[in-house]
């Protein structure tokens, strides 16, 4: 089990962000330790994705504080987040459909030759290597990713996050578009990355899946944090009532 007593890998404190009068995230604080999987649960529009996009640099918070390894972090762009070894697998996958897998995997971080030209062959070789590990059935290396199946596209997005030695991984609905077999593969991967000491934020609607994969779950409703619980301490019904009623049954008890 992960050590949750030391300095957290990520601390997000009192995060707020509003879009045109709608308080999308309203004073939420969560943290994440190395080797831990924290699940974020809640209805659509509860603010989970928005909160996580602040960490990945896609949105900028109005107020609040982010600490990485105990030090204050300034994240104003996706590039900043990458510099803190934060990698994100977006719900939309964020792939450029017209480009092939290697181009997508290295997008924004292309390998270049000494002359400064993109080194397509090197990137292809690296892609073949990581794909052989993640998804051995993946063969369409040179095809535009629009020609790939949902699962294959997912593995490109995952490969992109894993390849660059992320310390902090954000997975927004990683299994939503996947079949049974591929979902199992993602679950195995999460266990493997956890064992390697990564901290993972996982967003999903599937409560049962979350209870299997996560160490702790945080539930959000209407932009606010309902509560954070260790999975051993709660039942699926507890979680559901937190999601639906926005009340923490353990506090009430």
């Amino acid at each position: 089990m992960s050590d949750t007593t030391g300095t957290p890998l990520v601390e997000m404190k009192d995060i707020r962000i509003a879009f045109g009068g709608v308080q999308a995230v309203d004073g939420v604080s969560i943290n994440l330790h190395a080797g831990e999987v924290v699940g974020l649960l809640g209805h659509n529009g509860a603010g989970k994705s928005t909160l996580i996009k602040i960490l990945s640099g896609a949105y900028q918070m109005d107020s609040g504080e982010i600490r990485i390894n105990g030090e204050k972090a300034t994240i104003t762009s996706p590039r900043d987040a990458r510099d803190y070894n934060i990698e994100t697998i977006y719900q939309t996958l964020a792939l450029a459909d017209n480009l092939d897998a290697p181009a997508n995997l290295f997008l924004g971080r292309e390998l270049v030759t000494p002359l400064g030209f993109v080194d397509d062959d090197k990137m292809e070789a690296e892609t073949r290597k990581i794909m052989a590990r993640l998804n051995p059935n993946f063969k369409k290396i040179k095809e535009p990713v629009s020609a790939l199946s949902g699962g294959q596209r997912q593995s490109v997005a995952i490969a992109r996050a894993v390849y660059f030695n992320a310390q902090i991984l954000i997975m927004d609905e990683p299994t939503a578009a996947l079949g049974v077999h591929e979902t199992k593969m993602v679950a195995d991967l999460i266990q493997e990355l956890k064992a390697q000491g990564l901290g993972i934020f996982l967003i999903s609607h599937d409560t049962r899946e979350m209870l299997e994969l996560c160490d702790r779950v945080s539930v959000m409703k209407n932009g606010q944090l309902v509560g954070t619980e260790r999975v051993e301490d709660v039942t699926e019904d507890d979680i559901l009532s937190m999601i639906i009623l926005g009340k923490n049954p353990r506090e009430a008890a």
Partner: protein
Amino acid sequence: MSDAATSKTTAPPRRSLMQTLEIDTRLLGMIGAFLAICLVFNFYTDGRFLSARNIFNLTIQTVSVAIMATGMVFVIVTRHIDLSVGALLAFCSAIMAMLQARWLPGLGLELGSPLIAPLAIVAGLATGAIIGCFNGWLIGYQAIPAFIVTLGGFLVWRFAAWYLTSGQTIGPLDQTVLLFGGSEGILGETWSWIVGGLLAALSVLAIYAARRNKVRHDFPVKPAWAEAVMAALAAGSILGFTWLLNSYDIPRGKLRRMFEAQGQELPDGFTTGHGLPISVLILIGVAITMTVVARKTRLGRYIFATGGNPDAAELSGINTRKLTVKVFAIMGTLCALSALVAQARLQNHANDIGTLDELRVIAAAVIGGTALSGGSGTIYGAILGALIMQSITSGMGMVGVDAPLQNIVVGSVLVFAVWIDQVYRKRMGVK
């Protein structure tokens, strides 16, 4: 490595000749259409259309639009449009012409001074780049749609040029500048063979280097004979083109003037060919540079990624606003380069220079396979598109089709070409 092992044990599926050669069927279709157009016009003009003389003229008439079309590919790939290229060409041309004929002589530089041409050209290119940057800033940072910014620019820059020149035709242009126009600036037979030979050798070398690189990474390569065929095709067409332009003899009157200019008398029975025009070399240079940018640089990768999925590009840490500025700066610079070629070919700057060029340039890019939805397009396609457009226009002129009908046909061809492309994409299942 297990990949390579498994693919060897399973029998490779039967592949057609085209697949083995890895020729883009779309490109093949365009070349086929182009050849068909040439043959039809050649038939109706009793062989005049494919004469060395007409091919020479066709080539130099295409250069200006083709140069801009390569830039338009980047603009359209990033999901923008530039309606102001013809106007921008006119403005850059006005700046260059005024510098040559009025301003620099006014500052004390004598007409014919060797400094005039470089100063005028550099100033023209800088003007194009700066206006392009400004357009890109309005579009990228101020989020005004490119359609509106360049629709405004369409009026602004053409009439800024008019204002600058008071509506007058500006000439004569500097002798050095005229070299960029085509028929005045030619390499002659010997140099054409040297340049043609070098280009042919380069293309063979490029194919060889690409293959060697693939082998080094253990990637599948096409059979050696297929590479040889491609190399032979590339080198053959370059040398054939050189031969064709070399076989177009310079007319006697012009030869006499050329000899007189050097204080010599034209010997009896002396003939020599035109060879490659400098403007065509510029186009080849632009084409190679733009292709390398598109395929081998981060800038090119980001342009295509942004066109494919702007959100994904942004989430990958690409600064898409700055990218927009760069794309429009390239477009502006290429407009200025086209302005140089266009004014040199026409031998003066007139108010109507580059009129309707925006439509020709967009049509060339679109006929060349650049999708208006963004994310896909090729440089060679756009150049071939420009060539097809120019062939149709000048072919109809030679056949004697009435001017209104010519434009009706050109417009219809554009729509027809895009329709064919849609059908092709649907059949092939590409987006």
